[in-house]
């Protein structure tokens, strides 16, 4: 056998430039459901055993437990060794697309921005995680100071007089605002008379839902021809039965309602209050404030504007800002400072009581505080300006894509997000908006259509926060453009998408059939047997 003559040393073999679109494939482990990984006798972690003396002294702990309360058969939990549990969850963790992995501008209204790791790490200190909420105040001055200072910051950002950090997330914060409004009217003997709340079609559905839970009748304002909440409709809807107006600005369309002061004045004149849903605040930090627009209460989502991570759907955190007139109704307790130390004020006779256990989502409060501390006033201003710049840059580019449009307010600038429509493309090709979303998963990203009801047909809502670079935006556009093109030339590939995601087209029929649906593994097995 002869050796091949070695090649003359020269330049390395060049790696060709990457193709225009990422050749993405999502992790796909074809992982069974955890119960199928169970193996009799395996254990993941051993609980500490009580000492022999103690056990003897304790005697038979079940001797006074009635039979009805004693568990007879062990729960059929999976039996797995520690590594196997970890591995199963690691595999599942790879089968998600969060901010840390994808250009997550597609989840419009969620404000998917970078959650700084330094904040996550610090929040894992036992000096936060292992604090019991009933510890003596002298042992928790650190976290109380964080809560106090965050309140001060949010007061400045919103212009409000007080802020509560107790709500668990955005919808809980909306409910808190509505509960305070209800308490306010009740305190003035108008609780029964004022039984109507006004909101708009483009508001988050939780505005109407929370108000309804609180016992109100909901009147929705449809959009006018320009996409703003219809002011004439508001005039028709306001009366002496109006408890409040619950509104967002800008709404999910991204258009700022310049007549907001008129809206507020009209409702105030009728004796109602105004609540500002500031889930879309990311474009307005340092630009305009809830209080200056006349609002009585407002709320922020700390897991949106203020960077705390979304956690696959929580835990999150909400904050409600209120004027001093509304402050007596705040949930109990509030955090106060007496010049030397921080303490809780529980003596609040007009308070609506507790919204949730304890004082708030301490870990997320800490992270939001840290984020604001890392940026300061100029940094927050930059956050908003870049978020808005990114959004308008993206808007321009999306409008160049065949079949896409941005309904309402033609030619106007948007603030931090836009609700687009693929109506033209759907009409031309029969491809629907959500199918485009599924196809996007083949390129390592996704998008969200809209809240129900779909006022804008074939919607797509994009929100490029300040976390994304120009290159990120260009890549996202390239993906959309490519898919739009496919709709016109090869729609089948979109209809059968996704192809490169973790799994393939799900058979949806069983989800609405009581005979077939299975919310748990045991229900599934039981129904299969039948």
């Amino acid at each position, binding site marked *: 056998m002869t050796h091949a003559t070695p090649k003359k040393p020269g330049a390395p073999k060049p790696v060709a430039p990457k193709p225009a679109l990422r050749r993405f494939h999502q992790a796909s482990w074809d992982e069974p459901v955890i119960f199928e990984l169970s193996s009799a006798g395996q254990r993941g972690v051993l609980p500490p055993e009580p000492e022999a003396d103690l056990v003897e002294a304790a005697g038979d702990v079940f001797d006074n437990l009635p039979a009805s309360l004693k568990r007879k058969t062990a729960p059929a939990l999976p039996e797995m060794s520690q590594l196997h549990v970890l591995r199963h969850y690691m595999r599942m963790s790879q089968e998600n697309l969060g901010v840390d992995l994808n250009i997550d501008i597609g989840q419009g209204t969620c404000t998917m921005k970078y959650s700084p790791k330094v904040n996550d790490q610090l929040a894992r200190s036992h000096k936060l995680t292992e604090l019991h909420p009933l510890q003596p105040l002298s042992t928790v001055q650190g976290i109380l100071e964080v809560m106090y200072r965050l309140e001060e910051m949010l007061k400045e950002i919103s212009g409000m007089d007080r802020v509560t950090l107790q709500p668990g997330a955005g919808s809980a914060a909306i409910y808190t605002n509505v509960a305070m409004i209800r308490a306010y009217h009740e305190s003035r003997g108008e609780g029964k008379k004022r039984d109507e709340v006004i909101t708009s*079609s483009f508001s988050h559905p939780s505005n109407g839902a929370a108000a309804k839970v609180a016992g109100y*009748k909901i009147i929705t304002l449809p959009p006018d021809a320009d996409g703003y909440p219809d002011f004439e409709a508001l005039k028709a809807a306001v009366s002496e039965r109006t408890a409040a107006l619950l509104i967002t600005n800008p709404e999910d369309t991204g258009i700022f309602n310049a007549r907001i002061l008129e809206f507020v004045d009209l409702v105030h004149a009728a004796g109602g209050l105004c609540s500002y849903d500031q889930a879309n605040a990311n474009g307005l930090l340092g630009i305009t404030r809830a209080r200056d627009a006349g609002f009585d209460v407002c709320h922020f989502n700390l897991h949106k504007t203020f960077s705390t991570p979304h956690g696959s759907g929580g835990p999150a955190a909400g904050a409600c800002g209120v004027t001093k007139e509304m402050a007596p109704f705040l949930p109990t307790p509030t955090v106060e400072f007496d010049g030397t130390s921080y303490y809780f004020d529980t003596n609040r006779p007009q308070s609506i009581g507790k919204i949730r256990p304890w004082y708030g989502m301490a870990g997320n409060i800490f992270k939001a505080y840290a984020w604001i501390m890392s940026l300061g006033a100029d940094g927050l201003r930059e956050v908003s300006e870049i978020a808005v710049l990114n959004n308008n840059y993206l808007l321009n580019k999306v409008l160049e894509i065949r079949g896409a449009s941005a309904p309402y307010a033609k030619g106007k600038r948007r603030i931090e997000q836009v609700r687009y429509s693929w109506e033209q493309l759907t009409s031309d090709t029969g491809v629907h908006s959500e199918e485009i979303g599924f196809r996007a998963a083949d390129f390592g990203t996704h998008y969200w259509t809209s809240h129900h009801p779909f006022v804008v047909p074939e919607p797509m809502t994009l929100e490029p926060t300040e976390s994304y670079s120009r290159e990120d935006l260009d890549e996202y556009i390239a993906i959309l453009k490519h898919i739009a093109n496919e709709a016109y030339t090869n729609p089948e590939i979109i209809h059968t998408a996704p192809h490169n995601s973790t799994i393939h087209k799900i058979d949806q029929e069983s989800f609405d059939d009581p005979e077939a649906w299975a919310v748990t593994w045991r229900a599934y097995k039981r129904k299969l047997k039948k």
Partner: protein
Amino acid sequence: MNRIGLIVNPLAGIGGRVGLKGSDGIEIQRRALELGAVPESIQRATLSLIQLSQAASQVEVFTFPREMGEMSAHEAGLTPMVIDETGDLTTAEDTRRAVREMSGLGVDLILFAGGDGTARDVCSAIPAQFPCLGIPAGVKIHSAVYATNPNHAGELAGMYLHGRAHLREAEVLDLDEDAYRDGRVSTRFYGTLHVPFRPLLLQNQKAPSPASEARQAEAIAADVIEGMQSGIAYILGPGTTTRAIAQALNVEKTLVGVDVLRDGKLIAMDVTQKQLLDMLETMPARIIVTPIGGQGFLFGRGNQQIGPEVIRKVGRENIIVVSTSAKLQALRLQPLLVDTGDAEVDALLTGYFNIITGYKERMAYKVIS
């Protein structure tokens, strides 16, 4: 094996293209053809079938000869089963016969291409709740039983065959063609058909989807009934949403007519305008109406019995408007229209109504004339 019945009304809308309004009647059809009108419904049906065969590969098509569906099927690359025979020019009776025969064969869905007239003919012959769907091919369509375009019709039909579309009850409006030609628009609420509609492929995960229309109608009924006062006559306009109110009270209601309730009981059924006016002499009344058809008319289409005199007597403040939000969505939240025939009453009605869209839910909605 999926089976479709296909009925094409080749003369639907044929007058419109050559400046003749409407297309009923043998004479109008002859004149239109003489003027060079081309039957568009045939082409549109073809488009639907192409879309359908892409969505559902194993489809057997049953149809009538030549222009009534056979041509469209061939154009779409399908080999249909042609049942029965027709004369040279097709008539409404052919349509009705086709419907009877295809439903008798037990096809899964009847697709029909045409306009309001065709929908009316299908409606008069089809067994109750038999699934069908319209391919739009006429001039302006007032009925709500048509897909938005031929492609959409084919897609919906395919989804239905795959069990991925639900049926909903939609209104058929019957346009008075003679009146139309004379410049008057006059419609009757003729009946309803059960047509597939597109549920969302995957609901968005951040908020609950709206309730089904049926449940919404029940919620609306609960709200309206809660507000009813004794001694007052409630004039209930036609429509499926108003019918839900009667159902909740365990009272019969004519689907297409106007009925009157008082103290939870039916006191008059399928009344004329005169009967209403007579009744108003003797008791206070409120009107409960819902928009009918696909054009968003609140008064003037399908509920002319509640005429301008009645409206004037009852008073704007005693008019209760109900509608599912799904229906308003379908109208793209565009203002509702009124055309009572009396300009003064129309002007009275313009403005905003707090439409009841659910239990303790309202929408401040614009009405224009």
